[in-house]
C-alpha cells in the first residue's frame, strides 16, 4: 500500500525543490546594462565613525580620503600631488597654495579656499588652546608640520605660514570639509558633530550609505576634478572573520580583500584570477621594556618594573642577542615580514638606516654579556639582578593579534635559556593601555605601569616623526610604552624638526635611530607586512601604493581612480617577479612584494567537485559504518 505520509513528504520536497531552483543564480534577474559597476572591498576592520575627527581606524581614514581631498594628496609613492590645491609655491616660511579654479562640492556648491582655511583653522585653534579636535588624530599633523597661521585672501589662494621650511606641510592629513555644511562647528564641537550619509565632498567617491558593521557604500562624485575610475560605486564590506572574506574573494563577490592571514594568502596564490600582494607596512611589532626612571631617577610606589635591571642599557642590549628575529618571521608570520632593527621602518626608504652595531642572534653571547654586566646565575640556574633577586619578567600583550602569543612563546623559551623566567598575560587593548600608563598618565593612584615588557606594535605616517616622538621624555604618560627618557634624544628630535635640508635631517635621524637601537628600550622584532589579495578578472590597472605597499589602505586613494575594465583590456599586465612563498624576510622586500597570480591552471570548479565527491564519500563511509554497526547489534535491540 502506498503510504499517504510518503505522498505528502514527496509533495513537500517537490515544493522545496521549486523554491530552491527559483533562488539559483539563473533565476535571479540578469544584470542590466545600466547597473552600476561596483568595486567591492573586504576588510575585517570595522568602520568606527564617518566623522574624520572621530575615527581611529585605518578603514576610517580610507573612507574620509575617498570622500574628501587633502590640500595636497598622496601620489604613488606617498609624494605630495595636487589635491584640493592644484599648485603651490614656497617663499621662505610661507607656502602659497592655489585652489582649483571652478571646483565644486558633490552637492554643486563652489569649493574655495574658504573651505580649506576653515578646515585647517580648526586644528590651529585646538593647538592654540593646547587641546585636540575630536580624538586628536588630525591636528597633530598640523602641529608637526610647524604650521602657525593660515590665510585665505581670495577664493583661489591659501597661504600657510610655518615655523620651519620642511616638506611636512605637504603631507598634512587634514581633510578639507565643506564650510557651507560645517561652519557652525568649532574645534570643541567638531569631534561630536553628527556626520550622516550621504556626505558632501570633493573626493572621487563620496559616502552614500553606511550600515554599521556591515558596509559603507560610496558613489562616484559627479563633480570630481580628477581621473575617473571604471567603477561607479565603491563598497567596503566589513567581515567578522577573514575566512568568509577570503571565500567571498574566491567566489568573485569581492574584488579586494585586506589582511587575509599568512595561510590564507598562501592558499590564494594558486587561485585563478587572484593576485596576492605582500606589502611592506609602515610599522613594526616590538618588545618595549619598562625603563621607567631611566634619565629621571623616578620610581612608582607599588608599581613599575619588577627589577631595576630593565633600566640598565647593558641588560637590555644582552637580551637583544637572545631573540632570533628571522625565526619569528618564518615561524610566526609565515614568512611575511622583515626582521626589525631601527625605529624608522624601511618602507620610509629615505629616512631608514640600519644600525651601525647590529645584534645577531647568539644565546651564548647574550649569556656572557649578562655575566659581564653583573647579572650572574645562581646555583639553580636563575639569573640574578644586582640586588641578588632572581629575574622573573612579566610580559603583557593585547588580544588583537593572533601572532603575539606565538611570538611570546618563542621569547619565553629564549629568555629561559638565559636563566630569566618570563610570564605572559593577554589583555584586551583598552585594559592594556591603562595598565601601561605611569602616574604621568593622569591618575597617580590608578596608573602604576606595573609591567616589565610589552609586546605590541605601532604604525606610522608618511613622515617618521609620528613614530619618533614615542621615545621623547614628554611622551611618558601618553604614547610612550617603554617610558624611556633621554634628553640627548629629545635634543636630536628638536634639531631634526628645524633641519635646514633633507640631508641634514637624514643625518640627525640616523643618530636617533642608532641611539635607540644601542640603548635598546625597544627590541623591534619585525616590520609587519600588509597582506592583500585582489581579483584581476573584473578590474585591471591595480597599482601598489607605495610601490612596495598594497593597492588600498595605504596613503591616498589615487588607486581607486585608475582602475580599468579588465574585460576590455587587450591583455593582463605581466605578473611581477615574486619571492617564493614562505621565503623569509625577502617576501616583503620592495620589488619582490607580489606573488604571481596564475601559478596554476587548477580551476575552482574542479576543486569544488573534489570537495563534493569527498563529502559524499565521507558520508557514505559514515552511513555504511552506522548500518553495519546497527546490523551487528540489531538482534539484541529487537528483543
Amino acid at each position: 500500500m502506498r503510504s499517504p505520509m510518503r505522498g505528502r513528504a514527496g509533495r513537500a520536497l517537490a515544493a522545496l525543490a521549486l523554491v530552491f531552483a527559483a533562488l539559483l543564480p539563473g533565476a535571479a534577474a540578469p544584470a542590466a546594462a545600466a547597473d552600476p559597476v561596483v568595486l567591492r572591498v573586504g576588510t575585517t576592520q570595522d568602520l568606527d565613525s564617518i566623522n574624520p575627527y572621530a575615527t581611529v581606524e585605518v578603514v576610517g581614514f580610507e573612507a574620509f580620503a575617498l570622500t574628501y581631498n587633502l590640500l595636497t594628496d598622496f601620489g604613488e609613492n606617498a609624494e605630495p600631488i595636487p589635491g584640493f590645491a592644484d599648485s603651490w609655491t614656497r617663499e621662505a616660511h610661507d607656502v602659497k597654495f592655489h585652489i582649483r579654479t571652478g571646483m565644486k562640492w558633490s552637492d554643486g556648491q563652489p569649493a574655495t579656499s574658504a573651505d580649506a582655511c576653515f578646515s585647517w583653522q580648526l586644528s590651529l585653534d585646538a593647538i592654540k588652546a593646547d587641546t585636540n579636535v575630536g580624538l586628536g588624530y588630525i591636528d597633530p599633523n598640523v602641529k608637526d608640520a610647524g604650521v602657525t597661521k593660515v590665510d585665505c585672501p581670495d577664493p583661489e589662494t591659501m597661504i600657510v605660514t610655518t615655523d620651519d621650511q620642511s616638506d611636512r606641510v605637504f603631507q598634512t592629513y587634514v581633510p578639507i570639509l565643506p564650510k557651507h555644511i560645517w561652519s557652525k562647528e568649532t574645534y570643541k564641537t567638531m569631534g561630536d558633530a553628527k556626520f550622516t550619509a550621504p556626505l558632501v565632498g570633493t573626493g572621487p567617491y563620496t559616502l552614500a550609505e553606511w550600515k554599521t558593521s556591515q558596509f559603507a557604500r560610496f558613489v562616484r562624485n559627479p563633480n570630481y576634478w580628477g581621473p575617473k575610475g571604471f567603477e561607479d560605486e565603491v563598497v567596503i564590506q566589513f567581515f567578522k572573520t577573514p575566512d568568509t572574506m577570503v571565500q567571498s574573494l574566491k567566489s568573485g563577490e569581492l574584488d579586494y580583500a585586506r589582511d587575509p592571514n599568512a595561510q590564507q594568502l598562501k592558499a590564494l596564490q594558486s587561485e585563478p584570477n587572484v593576485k596576492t600582494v605582500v606589502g611592506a607596512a609602515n610599522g613594526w611589532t616590538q618588545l618595549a621594556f619598562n625603563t621607567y626612571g631611566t634619565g629621571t631617577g623616578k620610581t612608582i610606589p607599588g608599581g613599575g618594573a619588577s627589577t631595576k635591571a630593565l633600566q640598565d642599557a647593558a641588560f637590555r642590549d644582552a637580551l637583544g642577542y637572545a631573540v632570533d628575529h628571522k625565526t619569528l618571521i618564518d615561524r610566526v608570520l609565515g614568512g611575511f615580514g622583515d626582521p626589525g632593527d631601527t625605529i624608522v621602518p624601511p618602507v620610509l626608504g629615505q629616512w631608514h638606516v640600519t644600525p651601525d652595531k647590529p645584534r645577531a642572534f647568539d644565546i651564548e653571547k647574550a649569556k656572557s654579556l649578562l655575566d659581564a654586566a653583573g647579572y650572574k646565575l645562581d646555583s639553580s640556574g636563575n639569573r640574578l639582578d644586582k640586588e641578588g633577586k632572581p629575574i622573573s619578567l612579566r610580559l603583557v600583550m593585547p588580544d588583537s593579534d593572533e601572532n603575539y602569543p606565538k611570538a611570546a612563546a618563542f621569547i619565553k623559551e629564549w629568555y629561559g635559556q638565559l636563566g630569566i623566567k618570563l610570564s605572559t598575560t593577554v589583555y584586551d587593548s583598552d585594559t592594556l593601555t591603562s595598565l601601561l600608563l605611569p602616574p604621568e598618565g593622569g591618575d597617580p593612584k590608578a596608573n602604576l605601569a606595573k609591567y616589565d615588557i610589552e609586546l605590541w606594535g605601532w604604525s606610522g605616517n608618511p613622515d617618521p616623526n609620528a613614530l619618533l616622538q614615542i621615545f621623547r621624555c614628554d611622551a611618558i604618560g601618553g604614547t610612550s610604552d617603554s617610558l624611556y627618557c633621554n634628553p640627548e634624544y629629545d635634543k636630536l628630535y628638536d634639531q631634526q624638526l628645524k633641519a635646514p635640508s633633507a640631508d641634514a635631517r637624514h643625518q640627525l635621524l640616523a643618530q636617533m635611530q642608532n641611539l635607540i637601537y644601542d640603548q635598546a628600550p625597544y627590541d623591534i622584532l619585525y616590520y609587519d607586512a600588509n597582506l592583500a589579495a585582489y581579483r584581476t578578472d573584473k578590474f585591471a590597472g591595480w597599482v601598489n601604493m607605495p610601490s612596495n605597499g598594497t593597492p588600498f589602505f595605504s596613503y591616498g586613494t589615487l588607486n581607486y581612480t585608475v582602475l580599468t575594465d579588465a574585460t576590455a583590456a587587450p591583455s593582463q599586465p605581466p605578473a611581477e617577479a615574486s619571492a617564493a612563498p614562505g621565503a623569509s624576510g625577502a617576501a616583503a622586500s620592495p620589488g619582490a612584494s607580489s606573488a604571481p597570480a596564475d601559478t596554476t591552471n587548477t580551476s575552482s570548479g574542479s576543486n569544488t567537485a573534489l570537495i563534493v565527491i569527498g563529502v559524499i564519500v565521507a558520508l557514505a563511509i559514515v552511513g555504511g559504518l552506522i548500518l553495519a554497526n546497527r546490523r551487528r547489534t540489531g538482534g539484541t535491540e529487537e528483543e
Partner: protein
Amino acid sequence: MGSRYLGRKLSQAALTIVAIVILNFLLFRAMPGSPERILLRNPHITQEQLEAVRARWGLDRPLIPDQLVDYIASTATGDLGYSLKFQGKPVVDVIADSLWPTVLLIGLGELVAITIGLSIGAYAGWKRGGVVDRVGSGISLILYSMPYFVIGMPLIIIFAAGLHWFPTSGMTSVGGRPTDPIGQLVDLGRHLVLPLVTVALGLIGSYSIIMRSAILETRSEDYMTTARAKGISDVRQLRSHALPNALLPMVTIIAINLGYVVAGAITAEIVFNWPGLGSLTVTALSARDYPVLQGVFLLLSVAVVLANLVADVVYGLLDPRVRS
C-alpha cells in the same frame, strides 16, 4: 486551567525578570575594561577630555545607587539608553534593526528543523532498526555534535565559492541591488539559503534524537498494544495515538528553544556576516558598548523567561496532572 496556577507562574516570571534587570546591570560593570578607555587608543587624549567623556555618558556618577536607579527607571519606561558604538543611536532602534534578520533566520531555521527533525525522529522511532532509523539517527548524532562554524564553512566553500550558486555572506546585495520588490525578495532568498540550511542542520539533530526516544517510549504503552489489537492501520496508529503523546515532551523543548530565537546563533551569524543580534552582540562586546549589550541580554533573558512561561501554560493545558 486554574487562575492560581497561572498567577503563580506569572509572578514567578515577573520576579525573574526583575532579578535579571539588576544582574544585567551589575554583570557588565564587573567586566574588565571600561568604555571610555576605548578613547585611550588615542595617544593624544587629555585627562580633561577623558573626564568630559565620562561625564557625558554618566560614567562619573556612583555605580550604586545612582547609575542603577537610573537604569531601572529608564528600562521600565522602555528607554534602554543610547549606543556608544552606533553614533549615539537609541539602543531600542539598534536592537530593532538587528532583531528581524535574526528572527527571520533562526525562526525559519527552527521551523525547518522542527518539521524535518520531528519527521525523521518519528519515522525512525516508529520503524526502529530500519534504514531511516540507522542512517537518520547516525546523521542526527553527527549534526547534533557539530558547531555551526563546521557546518557553515563547507557550505560556503562548496555552494558559494565553488559552484557560485549562492552568495557567501550578508543579507542583501550591496551596490547594484535590485530595485523591484520581487527582485529584492529573490535577492534576500538567495542570501538566506546557506545560513538557513546551516542553522536548520544544526538543530535537526537534537529534535530528531529526542523525538525518536519519545516515540519509542509510547510504542510500549498499553494503549498502543490495544490499538494494534483493534487492527488500526500502521499510519493511523502513528498519527492518532503515538504522535500526540510523543509530542507532549517536545512542546517544552520547542518552547524553550524558541526563546533562544532572539539570541540568534552567534557563530552562524558571524560565519555568514548575517546582520542579526548575534553579530550585534559581538560588535557591541568588542566596543564595550554596555547599553547595547544590556539591551540584547535583557531581550534574550526576557524571551527565555516568556518562552518558559508559555511552555508551562501550554503544558498545563495539555496535561491536567501538571496543574494540580
